[in-house]
């Protein structure tokens, strides 16, 4: 796999690597997450809103689709199912339940499923639903039982189980108290097996009364407050999406740590990654004949004897100053060990001491873990309140895992915020901002330049004001990732061409021009001297991408004697990568890597022997 990954990354190491490895997203995988959509398919769900507003069923399908596609991209290992209840037809594993229609069994979502859900949208979708499933009697108890079976039929280990009920009927069984009772029994069974049941209730005339029936079905909110049930029914797609999104992702700690304030004062906190860079996934190898995935096995063996080597027969080494320094494998680990994992409070600093440019990795979020140390939440909460009040951050030394070297983090307090629908948009807790060490800060000489006049500044301010917009962090999709998945989708479904993706991070040039109007020229007149063309000068300097570049390349050849002299003087490293590559070619050395050090090592090995 390693070389396949390398294929996608920058090949020329002389230029600085653009993207480093991401530290935020590595979780310990303990099992699969699972999510069942249990959707009411009664006639009421298909009633269109006023002014051609989509029906509740339509909205639900839209949300299911967006969850499917986002799972495919960011957590394809999660299992998802789509089950309808209150149908006329029945379809379930042993066909033991009437009026329950399992549309998608609990499985990883794929291209076909996305298409299936697409097919259930709009008028055509409603027709298809009517034809295949119809609307009939309702027994939520049976439906829940059927879902329970879906969970228990899975042979994989499930780490998180969630069930979301989408309905607009607050009293699904009418006066049938037996059915109510059955549903309650079954719901409590599910909850006992660790399934979290959420209600995504939608608008109906007369309002949705949760207390009639569903209050006994759903899981109590985490914080034992009443907040969850006070939610108004959803009547907008965006709200529904937001609600589902908030519940759909399992909060998973990257690690649980003690925040130590002083000897014996340990607050248990969980560390969560709230922003993790999603990348194009790495390729997998398939057997050409059958397209089935192959597994790769890497083994290390002795060149001479050909025998497989045990880990104990391997040591680790690095070369410095022409000397190979060898360590045991466990020594390599112990070098990195400074202390047990944990956060150690060093002290506090005023917020303005946190510099904007001190950024080296995505921040992580901290929230107390009452289950680990009782009393944590109270102390954490007090610390949070006081830090906010005094406008300070806490500076901590952070060792996030065993054998991880320490980093320092600034714990910045964050206040809880909820939107108009009482859905939380910002959780309460500390954001831990990773701070750079001296090694991480580069010395950059700032060029001197003339001071701008007030007129110029004002003109720029006008430009800035014209182009104001409200930034939202979830407004931009990654065009590279989206295109990749559109391509895969097209291939998986034998489509003629992939669906178009809109590149949302392209500047809307026309709109900008239009909004600015004459301002651009006015600004240019104020700032640029006559006839200055900012685009002309650097063009000459820029490396030409086409053939012309080759001629300018310096002579790359170095004689063997020269190389040997360099090696003896230890100045081999002074040669540039292209020259080293050329030299490797000259001696017929096959190098796998393109890193300078690898080339150096290869040459040294060859010439030294």
């Amino acid at each position: 796999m390693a070389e396949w990954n390398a294929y996608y990354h920058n090949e020329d190491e002389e230029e600085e690597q653009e993207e480093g490895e991401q530290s935020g997203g590595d979780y310990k995988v303990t099992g699969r997450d699972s999510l069942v959509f249990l959707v009411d398919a009664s006639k009421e769900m298909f009633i269109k809103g006023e002014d051609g507003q989509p029906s509740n069923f339509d909205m639900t399908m839209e949300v299911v689709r967006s969850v499917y596609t986002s799972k495919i991209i960011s957590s394809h290992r999660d299992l998802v199912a789509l089950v309808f209840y209150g149908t006329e037809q029945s379809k379930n594993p042993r066909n033991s339940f009437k009026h329950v229609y399992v549309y998608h069994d609990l499985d990883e979502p794929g291209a076909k499923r996305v298409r299936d859900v697409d097919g259930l949208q709009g008028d055509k979708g409603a027709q298809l639903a009517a034809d295949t499933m119809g609307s009939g009697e309702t027994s939520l108890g049976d439906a829940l039982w059927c879902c329970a079976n879906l969970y228990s039929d899975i042979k994989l280990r499930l780490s998180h189980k969630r069930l979301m009920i989408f309905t607009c009927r607050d009293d699904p069984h009418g006066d049938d108290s037996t059915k109510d009772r059955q549903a309650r029994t079954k719901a409590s069974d599910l909850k006992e097996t660790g399934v979290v049941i959420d209600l995504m209730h939608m608008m109906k005339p007369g309002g949705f009364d949760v207390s009639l029936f569903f209050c006994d079905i759903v899981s109590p909110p985490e914080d034992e407050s009443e907040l969850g049930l006070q939610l108004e029914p959803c009547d907008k797609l965006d709200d529904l999406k937001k609600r589902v999104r908030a519940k759909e992702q399992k909060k998973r700690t990257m690690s649980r740590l003690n925040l130590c304030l002083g000897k014996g004062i340990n607050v248990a906190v969980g560390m969560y990654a709230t922003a993790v860079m999603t990348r194009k996934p790495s390729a997998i190898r398939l057997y050409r004949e059958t397209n089935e995935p192959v597994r790769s096995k890497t083994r290390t063996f002795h060149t001479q004897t050909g025998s497989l080597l045990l880990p104990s027969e391997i040591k680790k080494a690095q070369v410095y100053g022409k000397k190979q320094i060898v360590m045991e494998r466990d020594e390599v680990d112990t070098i990195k060990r400074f202390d047990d994992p944990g956060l150690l409070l060093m002290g506090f600093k005023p917020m303005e001491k946190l510099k904007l440019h001190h950024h080296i990795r995505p921040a992580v979020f901290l929230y107390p873990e009452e289950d680990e140390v009782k009393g944590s939440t109270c102390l954490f909460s007090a610390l949070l309140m006081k830090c906010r009040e005094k406008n300070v951050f806490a500076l901590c030394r952070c060792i996030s895992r065993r054998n991880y070297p320490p980093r320092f983090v600034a714990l910045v307090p964050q206040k809880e915020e909820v939107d108009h629908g009482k859905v939380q948009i910002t959780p309460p807790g500390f954001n831990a901002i990773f701070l750079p060490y001296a090694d991480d800060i580069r010395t950059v000489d700032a060029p001197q330049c003339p001071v701008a006049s007030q007129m110029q500044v004002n003109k720029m301010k006008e430009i800035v004001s014209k182009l104001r917009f409200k930034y939202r962090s979830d407004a931009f999709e990654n065009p590279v990732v989206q295109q990749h998945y559109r391509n895969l989708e097209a291939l998986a479904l034998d489509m003629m061409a992939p669906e178009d993706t809109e590149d949302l991070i392209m500047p809307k040039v026309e709109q900008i021009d239009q909004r600015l109007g004459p301002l651009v020229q006015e600004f240019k007149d104020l700032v640029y001297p006559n006839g200055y063309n900012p685009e002309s000068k650097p063009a000459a300097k820029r490396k030409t991408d086409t053939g012309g570049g080759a001629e300018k390349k310096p002579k790359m050849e170095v004689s063997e004697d020269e190389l040997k002299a360099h090696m003896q003087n230890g100045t081999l490293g002074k040669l540039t990568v292209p020259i080293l590559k050329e030299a490797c070619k000259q001696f017929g050395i096959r190098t796998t890597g393109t890193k300078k050090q690898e080339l150096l090592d290869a040459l040294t090995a060859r010439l030294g022997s």
Partner: protein
Amino acid sequence: MDVGFSMSNSAPGEEPPFELAKKVIQKFVQRQVFAETKDELALVLFGTDSTKNPLDQDGQYQNITIHRHLMMPDFELLEEIQNQIHPESQQADWLDALVVCMDLLQRETKGKKYDRLNIVLLTDLNTGASADHLDVIIENLKKDGITLQFFLPFPVEEDEEGGGDADRRGPSHPGMGKGLSREQKNSMDMMKHIMLSLDEEDGLDQIYTFTNAIEQLCMFKRIERRPMSWPCQLTIGSSLSIRIVGYKAVTEEKLKKLWISVDAQTNKREDLKRETVYCLDDDNETEVQKDDTIQGFRYGSDIVPFSKVDQEQMKYTHDGKCFAVLGFTKQSLVHRHQFIGNQVIKIFAPKDDEEWPCRPSSGRWHELKMVAIVRYAYDRRSNPQVGAAFPCIKQDYECLLYVQLPFTEDLRQFTFPSLENNKKFTPSDTQLSAVDSLIDSMMLVEENENGEQVDMFKVHQLPNPAFQRHFQCLHHRAVSPGTPLPPMEPWLKAALERPEVISERCQAPLEEMRKTFPLTEVEKKKKVKTSVGSVDPARDFRILIKQKSRPFGEVCQQLTHRIEQLLSNKNTQYYMKSITCIQAFREQSIEVKKKKNTLTIFHLRKYIMIGLEVFWDLLVQGTISLFTWDCRISLKSFLP
């Protein structure tokens, strides 16, 4: 380095200057070796018994030895310093030695590119130096742009004019011995003369003491990288473009080298070979050739074959290098904790561009508290990003700071229980005031008597402890192979702890915290089943019986209760479940048969009596599987 006999003199209990000077050189070379700088270094010894230098003629430049010519330092040099450099018994003119060094630099830098030439003299200045050609030497130093540094066993105070009275200083400083000799005083004057001639203002700042230098050199060098410039155009719409140049200013630096695997016996890398094989996921793990594999990707549950060629052709492409403004937004909408990526880029005006309008564009709109949201692409091959450009106004420069922001796909919108609305966890006033005084006692930033803010813990001035420790261990292993790794350097350990002032000051508030906030670690125990649940009563029943944590009778009672509940639903599904319960009951009863526990099963009769005919039918149908056990209870006993 002066290795002459006077360098071995020291007051009792003090390390001789020779040893200290050697340490300075060792530390310095170590840093160079591990930093892998391309700096070259030569070592000239003076006061040696023999003479080995190109200026050795007519009895001039005697007792000066070029130990190593100008080249990159390595472990060989470190070992030589360790093992081959000893105090010798001659004395040599340090000015002569300086001339030899100047000559060496001149000869050996021919045809090389260099930034700077520097000569470091480590000596006790205890030789009479002839001042004959002092002016010529100074002229040449200036001409060649050579800088000088002196390392001495004793400090030089600036206010002293020309070699004053030795007694005045007293023997307070280690290395001073009984005060300075006449030669030393003379030499000192000459040294000062040279240094001030080279740099009138700060020349004397380049004179250090050995002990001071050792302290300063104890850290390994921080990783330094030459910032690469990234010239581009900042564009706003189609017709406004501004030339810019970007530099990576902050980024998480990694060690340049990775560990390689070597054979444990021979320590040779070539003796190891790693091989990757591919095999099918069948029982035989059938191996397939690499050439028989193709590339594919996962699309959820689908696996899509997708060749590199197709992928190249279909992939997202863009126009390359770009820094285009999408719009401007309030700074408060761009949250610090949503910064992503691992770098900050500073955007400046290009150096050679006189008429640069970035100043008006970067500067001053900070008054509006706005930031630019931009599309950034490093080059054609790298993926475009969305990010924010913050105006940054400093006293001597203005620039934009670019940081990457997340895409929709990157965000994990977790919700957490509210802390404020939860009475259970609301801190009391006493608790709040305890935290209040803790914070006050632990402020790391304070005002000093001049009203200036002093930050006593600047993380960005601390070298990465992981690198320091890494080099310490590597160095140890290289010079003392076969011995266990050393403990962490005390200075490093101390640097990672709370500053002492803070530790002391926060004692009382911490004690208060301990009192007001009860914290108890929750004991982690495995979830123990304590009763027969409704989901899978049969399984629970079996587990409980096996655990023996509850009396058998009680567990049976619980199961019976569950069966009753199940049957009351009057539904086939529940009947089936009841039957599995009975099955479990029977199986367990047989296992513990000695206890002759059979009574509860007879309760079943009563259900049969109350008209659960369907259930009865099922029970009878199932009798074959149900009663194929070695049956002690006859079927008859179930009959009404």
